[in-house]
């Protein structure tokens, strides 16, 4: 269990690509931190620098109170779960789990004990003598997790561990990982490109883009108080609609107004709101609600409406958005200037 700290960490590849730029970030003891962002945003590079798989070009990474820049992966006391699991194909499940412990010269009895405990926790007891190729994707994934937890490391590093599972298994495994992490209370960095995964799993989330940290906060903070247009549109699905403020009569010239699909109401609203007429283009019926794609001038918007609202594709309807639910952004910098247009 340890705190992990990034102090002005940068990564520049030999071809000049700047993958991570002066990253400042502290992950508390036992915290589940998610790095999220589109591909190429530097999240995986940041993770790999913690693991010791990438050299650190500038700044320092601390695990506990130890600077680990010059320390080999072996001595960093971290365990990693890889996207493709990276199980040793020539070893059985038991040997895969035990390998790291053997290299650390734990005694035989203790290794057996820990392997058994991990296998029990992950429901792998029946497969201990099998080779990875005889396992299903979900089982392999659990072995990869097991290999991390037997080590009882200071931190777990997970690099998109769910991306190779099918949708149903992904939801189930998500919950299992969370349960496991809460029980062990091990500091965890979890990298994903999937904002739903990030929102559902992270104690806190670090949103990155092009090597630069955009915002760090709890899921709620990111959702309700996005620091800029990028975070606002990246978090939440369907994403926030962004239109020039004056178009709907809020803010000044040079400001953007953002509002989420669930805040768009059909017809009038009983709280202070902006109102606009938009053309309904497509209606997606989801059962419990419906997604309505709207066109407002040259802007495309999405509204999440109750199924009771009757809208017709092709018709022009009147919509309202409460002022308190509209965030304002500076259109030049993209930075948020207010999280409510009510004031």
């Amino acid at each position, binding site marked *: 269990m340890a705190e992990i700290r990034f102090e002005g960490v940068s990564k520049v590849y030999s071809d000049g690509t700047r993958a991570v730029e002066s990253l400042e970030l502290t992950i508390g003891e036992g915290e589940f931190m998610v790095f999220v962002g589109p591909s190429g945003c530097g999240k995986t590079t940041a993770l790999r620098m913690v693991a010791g798989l990438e050299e650190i070009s*500038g700044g320092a990474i601390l695990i506990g*109170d*130890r600077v680990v820049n*010059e320390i*080999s992966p072996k001595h960093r006391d971290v365990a990693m779960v890889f996207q493709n699991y990276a199980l040793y194909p020539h070893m059985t499940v038991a040997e895969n789990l035990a390998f790291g412990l053997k290299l650390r010269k734990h005694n035989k009895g203790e290794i057996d004990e820990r392997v058994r405990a991990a296998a029990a926790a992950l429901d792998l007891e029946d497969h201990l003598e099998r080779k990875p190729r005889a396992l299903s994707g979900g089982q392999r994934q659990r072995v990869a997790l097991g290999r991390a937890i037997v080590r009882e490391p200071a931190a777990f590093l997970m690099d998109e561990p769910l991306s190779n599972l099918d949708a149903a298994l992904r939801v189930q495994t998500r919950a299992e990982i969370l349960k496991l992490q809460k029980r062990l209370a091990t500091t965890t960095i979890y990298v994903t490109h999937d904002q739903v995964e990030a929102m559902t799993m992270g104690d806190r989330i670090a949103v990155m883009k092009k090597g630069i940290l955009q915002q760090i906060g709890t899921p709620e903070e990111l959702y309700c108080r996005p620091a800029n247009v990028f975070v606002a549109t990246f978090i939440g699905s369907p994403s926030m609609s962004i239109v020039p403020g004056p178009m709907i009569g809020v803010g000044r010239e040079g400001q953007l107004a953002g509002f989420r699909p669930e805040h768009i109401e059909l017809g009038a609203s009983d709280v202070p709101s902006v109102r606009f007429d938009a053309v309904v283009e497509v209606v997606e019926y989801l059962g419990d609600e419906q997604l309505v794609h709207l066109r407002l001038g040259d802007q495309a918007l999405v509204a999440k409406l109750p199924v009771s609202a009757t809208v017709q594709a092709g018709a022009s309807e009147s919509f309202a958005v409460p002022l308190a639910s509209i965030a304002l952004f500076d259109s030049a910098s993209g930075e948020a200037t207010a999280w409510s247009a009510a004031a």
Partner: protein
Amino acid sequence: MSTIDPVAAPVEKAQHAQMSKARAEAPRLRARRTPVTWARNGGLSTLLFLLPMLVIFGAFSWYPIVRTVIMSLQDTNLVQPATWVGFANFSQVIHDPQFPIAVKNTAEFALLALVFGYPIPLVAAVVMSEVRKRRGLYSALAYVPVVIPPVVAVLLWKTFYDASPTGVFNTILGWVGLGPYPWLQSQQTALPSLVLESTWANAGGTVIIYLAALTGVNHELYEAAAVDGAGLWHKVWHVTLPQLRGVLLVTMILQIIGTAQVFLEPYLFTSGGPANATLTVLLLIYNYAFGNSLGGNYGDATALSLMLAGFLAVFSLVYLRATRSWSSG
């Protein structure tokens, strides 16, 4: 075991603060590489892994290549000290009356080997690739001659080539009223006899290469061709052969390079005879270097081997250039 690094000692808080200040001031300093950081980061163990290769290749590949060039410009026989003679060895070789004979024989050998050995494996491989049952048996049978030690193969065929009417081949041909033929003992038939044996010994390898390439042909191409209305011959002509052309070109140049260095057959079958009818370039090199018990003429031998290597290099380049458009088209 690991040369990477020692476990860092726990850092005191004060020290730590100091360090982060230093880090903030000079982030670049850390990236500087010294021999010590190089060794710590595994540079030394990497070198250790490369060591066997560097030593072995240095001593038995790179150094001898350089040495060949030096020796070809020297008069040297290991007995007297070497003297520099410039290109005298080369002109000596070119003016050796045996040189044009060896070149002609080698060229003839290579050409005959192409005529015998090039189309047959291709046809065999195409037919074999369509065998539905026991394809393994076919390829195993074709490959058997390849695993027989060449010395055994040559000496066995030498027995077969016995020129008397009771020789193996003459007996078999006698059944259909042919022969007896002199095989190795006539200037006309000696070289083709060598080529025949060499083709037998090597064709299996080529068949396997073609078979591997044939299984690599995308089956959807055949299906697409069939849908387009192509018959069997059309498919062979428009799908199989175009898909194989890269491999076909490579095996051809490899075969030429191989047969240009033919040694074992002329050495063991005929020692270059009768009347130099099977004297090849490599046999000539061998004779220069090792044929004389009084001491080798290493200068001439290396000069000739360099000329051969140079010719093959130029030939390959021209060949690859000439066929480039065809092979990538």
